[in-house]
């Protein structure tokens, strides 16, 4: 392979570096009307009335629509492939506007106006009267008898409960001499914080409705818009231009359905919904806060005799991706540190908070924090070095998961741990830091993870691709898989150039924009799947394209198609490498041949019936200023085995981004709500502590490239994995530095103050007198 595996410059880099890349707002029709949303100011209640009189008087206001005008259609929003089995379809619990408001920020009414200011004034002028209901923010409290009920069909607010039973837990814990290592581990509500807020615009044309949206999943959004507004799915066209990041938030139908409906209410005129940052935090999606209770029973040698894990996932007000996330989190436990006797129970529970959906890692950053914290304590309990403990008890080589059929072919976990140790200079630092006894102490820690690639066998895995041979011998390619900033288009270009036999990845023109009217159907950017799944359809379509090329070349050259291949953009004779015809000449001839004209194209769909384990770990070195309750990450290294790298430089860059997200998850990020009202407290980029460039050390990414046997190009998941193990590695480093085990993210000064005070590391000056 000569094109795949190279650090090529992104295909979209030039446009992005010059500012000409068009995001949804840069394509806005100048006559688009502004839609602004009136959100509820209570956490739970019934809308008694909405008085729109004053709003309608404002100059420039075109229309005010309320929850009493919206269609009574319940629809799902999760960016999952449709399932033909009603049992597997996403929960439909959402309305365009709500008379029953279920969180502070729910959508009650909209103002459609000619300008932004009139729309904002209109929203403020609407008078809403509510009958408030009691609300609940904590999932375990929401499960109690008598708790406020959010959705009638779900008793005790339990959206779903699933379990894992393996061996005989109750019997296994009777073994004598077992050490019990137990803890509650708590992860916070956080948000994706892509720098481009979600937004979209919609208009009607020829009786159909078009929505241009900042989304990761255009084809899925088409279906949801159709469902939500009660129109045939084919009536809806979704166009996805470049987007300014998504990280899972845009793996949901957000405001596309409402936007489409608003357009239909003003005669199909173009209307725009531009989420503010404040809305993005609250009225889009968040990452599930999950609380874990882990009880591990280990023998004196550290081996795991039995393990019990309870997981309580805070779903917020609407189902969105629902139970899938905590189910994935739960499913990680029996695989990462295998144990013969396990009892796991996962609950997804509605509460009066913003709806939780997909976010980079899909349950795994939460599980990784809980699991690798508990494992660290297991190592401590028997006095074993934590890396050594992992080396002994982590998923071994040859491990196969019964459900996904994934296999750890190469002993990747241990290879990653060894490389991480070496890069951070683990042994020396552990020895050196043990001497730190003062107010400022250093520590080092690690954590491991595995990740799936794609969603098979839980859901459909399909990839479609279309290739057109251009007259200059280049190829135009359309994929169902979307570019959301991660570099997908570049990787696809490299793979296609390789599969066809073109000279350069620049000879493949990926149509970056998906338009559901013309782009082959695909599912979109999620589950770290795209490079893996697109590989199958790219290779298959390239083969089809080459067959057509060879067939035409055969007519022109009389050479056997079996003795042809494409090399550097030419059709060559395999046996002696002689150039028979260039692709350009062939394409020109085929196109303009008056007797036998052909535009050479190929299109195909590949159904993927595979999944693949991706592996890795993080090593973090911290300095803890105990009196100031502050942690500084001094060094951090991620090691990944994601198979072969298609583009090493982009892979590394993607890992940096995930590490940054993990540092924020570990140390500073948390979306806060007033316990008395459910009101969001810090839904802006000043008060929500996303890491700045001054909050990291240099980030180091390293790779072990064990080719994935099931993958066309030997590659597998890398999009989400970098965000998984950073927070627990930092947590374990703090533990190493101070001897204080932390149980709650983020490990910000507030939580450190409480933990250090409890541990006696901080003196109370009042007590000292």
């Amino acid at each position: 392979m000569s094109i795949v595996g190279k650090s090529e410059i992104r295909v979209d880099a030039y446009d992005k570096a010059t500012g000409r890349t068009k995001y949804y707002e840069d394509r806005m029709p100048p006559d688009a009307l502004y839609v602004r949303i009136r959100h509820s100011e209570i956490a739970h209640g019934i809308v008694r009335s909405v008085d729109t009189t004053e709003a309608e008087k404002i100059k420039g206001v075109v229309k005010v629509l309320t929850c009493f005008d919206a269609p009574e259609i319940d629809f799902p929003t999760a960016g999952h492939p449709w399932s033909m089995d009603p049992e597997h379809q996403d929960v439909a619990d959402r309305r365009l506007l709500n008379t029953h408001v279920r969180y502070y920020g729910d959508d009650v009414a909209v103002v459609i106006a000619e300008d932004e200011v009139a729309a904002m004034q209109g929203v403020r002028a609407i008078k809403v009267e509510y009958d408030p209901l009691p609300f609940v923010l904590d999932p375990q409290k929401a499960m109690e008898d008598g708790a406020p009920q959010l959705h009638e069909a779900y008793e005790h607010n339990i959206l779903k409960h699933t379990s894992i039973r393996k061996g005989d837990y109750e019997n296994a814990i009777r073994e004598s001499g077992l050490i019990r290592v137990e803890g509650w581990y708590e992860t916070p509500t956080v948000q994706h914080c892509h720098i481009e807020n979600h937004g979209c615009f919609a208009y009607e044309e020829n009786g159909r409705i078009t929505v241009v949206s900042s989304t990761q999943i255009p084809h899925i959004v088409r279906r949801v818009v159709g469902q939500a507004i009660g129109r045939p799915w084919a009536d809806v066209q979704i166009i996805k231009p470049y987007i300014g990041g998504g990280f899972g938030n845009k793996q949901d139908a957000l405001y596309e359905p409402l936007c489409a409906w608003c357009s239909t209410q003003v005669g199909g005129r173009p209307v725009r919904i531009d989420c503010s940052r404040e809305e993005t935090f609250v009225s889009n999606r968040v990452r599930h806060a999950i609380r874990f209770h882990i009880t591990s029973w280990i023998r004196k040698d550290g081996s795991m005799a039995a393990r019990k894990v309870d997981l309580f996932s805070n779903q917020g007000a609407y189902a969105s991706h629902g139970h899938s996330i905590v189910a994935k989190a739960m499913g990680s436990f029996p695989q990462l540190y295998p144990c013969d006797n396990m009892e796991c129970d996962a609950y997804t529970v509605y509460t009066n908070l913003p709806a939780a959906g997909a976010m980079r890692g899909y349950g795994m950053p939460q599980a990784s924090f809980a699991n690798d914290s508990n494992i660290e304590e297991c190592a401590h309990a028997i006095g074993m070095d934590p890396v050594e403990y992992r080396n002994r008890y982590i998923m071994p080589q040859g491990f196969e998961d019964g459900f996904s059929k994934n296999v750890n072919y190469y002993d990747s976990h241990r290879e990653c741990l060894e490389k991480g140790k070496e890069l951070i200079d683990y042994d020396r630092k552990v020895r050196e830091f043990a001497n730190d006894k003062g107010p400022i102490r250093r520590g080092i820690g690690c954590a491991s993870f595995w990740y799936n690639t794609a969603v098979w066998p839980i859901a459909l895995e399909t990839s479609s691709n279309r290739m057109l041979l251009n007259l200059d011998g280049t190829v135009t390619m359309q994929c169902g898989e979307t570019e959301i900033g991660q570099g997908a288009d570049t990787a696809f270009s490299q793979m296609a150039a390789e599969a066809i036999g073109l000279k350069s990845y620049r000879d493949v023109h990926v149509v970056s924009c998906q338009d559901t009217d013309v782009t082959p159907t695909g599912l979109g950017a999620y589950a770290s799947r795209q490079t893996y799944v697109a590989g199958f359809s790219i290779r298959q379509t390239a083969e089809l394209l080459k067959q057509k090329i060879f067939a035409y070349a055969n007519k022109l050259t009389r050479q056997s198609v079996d003795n042809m291949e494409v090399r550097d953009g030419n059709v060559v004779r395999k046996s002696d490498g002689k150039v028979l015809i260039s692709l350009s000449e062939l394409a020109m001839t085929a196109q303009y041949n008056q007797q036998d004209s052909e535009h050479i194209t190929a299109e195909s769909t590949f159904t993927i019936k595979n999944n693949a384990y991706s592996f890795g770990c993080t090593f973090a070195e911290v300095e803890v200023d105990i009196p100031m309750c502050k942690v500084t990450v001094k060094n951090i290294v991620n090691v990944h085995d994601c198979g072969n790298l298609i583009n090493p430089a982009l892979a590394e860059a993607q890992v940096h981004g995930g590490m940054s997200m993990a540092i924020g998850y570990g140390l500073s990020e948390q979306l806060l709500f007033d316990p008395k009202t459910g009101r969001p407290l810090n839904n802006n980029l000043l008060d929500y502590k996303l890491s700045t460039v001054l909050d990291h050390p240099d980030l180091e990414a390293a790779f072990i490239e064990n080719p994935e046997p099931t993958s066309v190009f030997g590659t597998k998941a890398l999009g989400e994995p970098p965000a998984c193990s950073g927070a627990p590695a930092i947590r374990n480093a703090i533990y190493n530095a101070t001897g204080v085990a932390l149980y709650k993210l983020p490990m910000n000064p507030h939580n450190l103050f409480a933990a250090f005070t409890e541990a006696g590391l901080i003196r109370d000056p009042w007590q000292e007198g």
Partner: protein
Amino acid sequence: MSQYKLIRCTINGKEVERMIDVRASLTDLLRNDFHLTSVKKGCEVGECGACNVLIDGECYNSCIYLAAWADGKNIRTLESLTGPNGELSDIQQAFLEEAAIQCGFCTPGFIMTAVEILETGKLYTRDELRKLLSGHLCRCTGYENILNAVEKTMKRRLGMPTE
């Protein structure tokens, strides 16, 4: 009653005159009147840096800068860096080469701050560069390659080795 003001300013080297609505931000003016779409909106309250532009040589978040204040000012956006035949400036090229671009939404703002840094002609340490770039948020890159791109361009301009 709407209120308007006639402003004259220089935008990307060109003297222009516009009647503006006094309610407009500089972001509104640059995007809507001049179609300078490199000026991005990420928060509209000066927290993310996506709308950053140079005004008389200093960086400002144009979202919290009144268009009315642009009168008499020299304003530069990312569009000003690209040559007449599409040639990239050194700092843009460095962003390409260092893989400092992902979704691209924070990129224009970062590059314009880099321009301000580079135009001082000074040598900064990596930590100083971090501070100078700290008015921009990025969720894709972890800032690592952005720092690399700025640092390398700074060193190249100062005739220093970059490795």
